[in-house]
């Protein structure tokens, strides 16, 4: 092999696997950079959320199935794994801890096949409503079957069972993190490969046109059922990791809140690209864990973000990023950046104003003592005086006026860049 051939072979290998190698390196290095126990807990939670969100996108993005009950499999995976841990502790079954998530996944598959068959006869509204019903069914049975779901206090177990493949004790958070990281990479890799299989492609085809698919030989109900079952498998793995990570699983894990959460994560990240849900899972987990410490109103901010994405960026963060791919390749990003910066400033002003309003309102209506001074960015003021209101509303109006002008500028820059790229393509 001559050196040029060698180099091009290396390049094609790099193109195919580079992103995975990069991801593996990042995943390994992150906990060494963020060393606090809080950030390591957050990283672990992110890994779990990534698997969960990617599995959700097997339904929504790949299969066109909007599920309102995907946490059923997350929760069932969690409960099955936590019982698995107890069996190991009781000496019933010697399952190595490293494989415990797989137990959750396989358990979820059985339920996935059953519920999938029930729910996926039709897509669209019918499926969405049945998935909601299944979610409610399992959530309510969680209270009726306390021996399996543990009632209100949930089921807890000890992950240090002494039975492992690697000999690691898993007493420290960092070792659990690496176990989660391993499963996250493996699951993400497998889910990516699944998109390339006949079943994955036919899931796309059935999503695109369920009327046509039977005329290329496929039973749409079966395609959806199998896709749903595989999605349940990975959600079960995520649930199993949850059980291993926290050593407790409660009935909340199975309810509509995590079901809605995973929908929003996936959507914010972007359903049209494989890596979209990864972005969404990372961002939303970060917001959940850090914003919740800063403000009581964090759910409101989260809701606003979600609404904003649905309205203005329906393809999610991944969609926004990929929109810039051709511009980046043409080397024209520098033409867009000034306009972006110019728009970001008034956007920030609007955000500050809105934030001020939200915080004042939260303080007035929800804090124990509304007359106590409110502290924002180290500035103390009384929430009951009119001045902060005037400032907040003023900021929003001024920000809005400037933002409109800046938005026009962004539009203009985009038009210039597109016409330039067209010229480049034809010339």
């Amino acid at each position, binding site marked *: 092999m001559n050196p040029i051939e060698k180099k091009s072979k290396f390049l094609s290998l790099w193109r195919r696997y580079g992103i995975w190698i990069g991801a593996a390196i990042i995943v390994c290095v992150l906990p060494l950079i963020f060393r606090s126990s809080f950030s390591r807990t957050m990283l672990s939670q992110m890994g779990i959320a990534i698997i969960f969100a990617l599995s959700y996108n097997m339904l929504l993005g790949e299969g066109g199935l909007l599920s309102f009950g995907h946490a059923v499999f997350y929760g069932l995976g969690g409960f099955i794994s936590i019982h698995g841990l107890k069996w190991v502790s009781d000496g019933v079954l010697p399952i190595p801890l490293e494989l415990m998530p797989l137990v959750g996944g396989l358990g979820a598959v059985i339920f996935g096949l059953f519920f999938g068959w029930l729910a996926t006869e039709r897509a669209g509204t019918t499926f969405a409503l049945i998935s909601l019903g299944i979610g409610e069914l399992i959530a309510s049975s969680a209270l009726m079957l306390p021996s399996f779901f543990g009632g209100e206090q949930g089921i807890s177990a000890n992950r240090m069972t002494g039975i492992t493949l690697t000999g690691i004790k898993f007493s420290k958070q960092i070792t659990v993190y690496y176990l989660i990281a391993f499963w996250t990479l493996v699951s993400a890799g497998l889910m990516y490969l699944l998109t390339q299989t006949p079943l994955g492609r036919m899931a*796309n085809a059935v999503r695109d046109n369920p009327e046509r698919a*039977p005329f290329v030989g496929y039973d749409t109900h079966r395609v959806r059922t199998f896709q749903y079952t595989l999605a349940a498998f990975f959600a079960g793995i995520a649930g199993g990791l949850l059980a291993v990570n926290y050593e407790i699983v409660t009935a909340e894990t199975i309810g509509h809140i995590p079901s809605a959460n995973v929908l929003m994560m996936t959507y914010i990240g972007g359903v049209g690209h494989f890596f979209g849900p990864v972005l969404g899972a990372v961002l939303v987990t970060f917001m959940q864990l850090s914003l919740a410490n800063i403000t009581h109103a964090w759910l409101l901010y989260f809701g606003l973000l979600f609404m904003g994405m649905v309205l203005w960026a329906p393809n999610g963060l991944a969609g926004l990023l990929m929109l810039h791919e051709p511009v980046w390749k043409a080397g024209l990003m520098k033409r867009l950046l000034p306009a972006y910066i110019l728009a970001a400033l008034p956007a920030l002003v609007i955000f500050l104003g809105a934030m001020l309003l939200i915080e004042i309102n939260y303080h007035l209506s929800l804090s124990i003592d509304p007359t106590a001074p409110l502290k924002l960015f180290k500035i103390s003021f009384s929430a009951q005086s009119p001045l902060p209101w005037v400032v907040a509303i003023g900021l929003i109006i001024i920000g809005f006026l400037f933002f409109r002008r800046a938005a026009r500028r962004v539009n203009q820059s985009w038009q210039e860049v597109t016409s330039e790229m067209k010229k480049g393509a034809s010339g």
Partner: protein
Amino acid sequence: MTATALKLIDVNKSFGSSKIINGVTLEVLSGERHAIIGPNGAGKSTLFNLISGFYPVNSGRIELKGRDITNLPSHQINRCGLSRSFQVTNIFPRMSVFENIRCALLWPMGYRYSFWHLCGRLKKVNEKAEELLAKINMADRRDIPAGLLAYADQRALEIGITIAGNADVILLDEPTAGMSKSETGRAVELIHSVTEDKTLIMVEHDMNVVFDLADRISVLVYGEILATDTPGSIRSNAQVQEAYLGKELA
């Protein structure tokens, strides 16, 4: 004796109280190109939907190559060797042109619901898909999302999907509807070449296309077959002229 590809025996279909298909009996021979013509609302598309299992029949019997396929689900009829296109363009819009064709090859080439094969590695499937792309003259647009193609190209792609599998009985529902004259000419050529040694049944409004392609023609009026004959005889059939062709050929 030529074998029968498709046989309809006294097939009836009503929606509510309105009778759309009224005792249709029809025999299509293996290897022939058979056109079904008739005025708007005669039930041509409904007839296709019955044959392909899209709607269940009320009574009667449908046989494909001697096998009873009455009221089987569409995907099973397809697996028996019948494929169809639709009157309204019916492709997989968000998938690439190449993927559209490949989807139609997966089942017939035995990959079914596999989630343990990678499509990129299915050499025979991919080769066949490329071959078909070349056949429908779309190799240069293989990676474009099918939904972004021009209308005539989408129709051509749909024909590609329809013939991709092993199906030897092909139903085309108005394959040239909405096309310009030159596009129609190309479509006729394409249909001619891809249905070589297959059985073709088509619904078509454009009489030039019908007389170009068809070996035999059936005339459907108000859900009943008025006549089935060669193009020449149909043209001179007084009953048909009165009912349908009327001024067009007078």
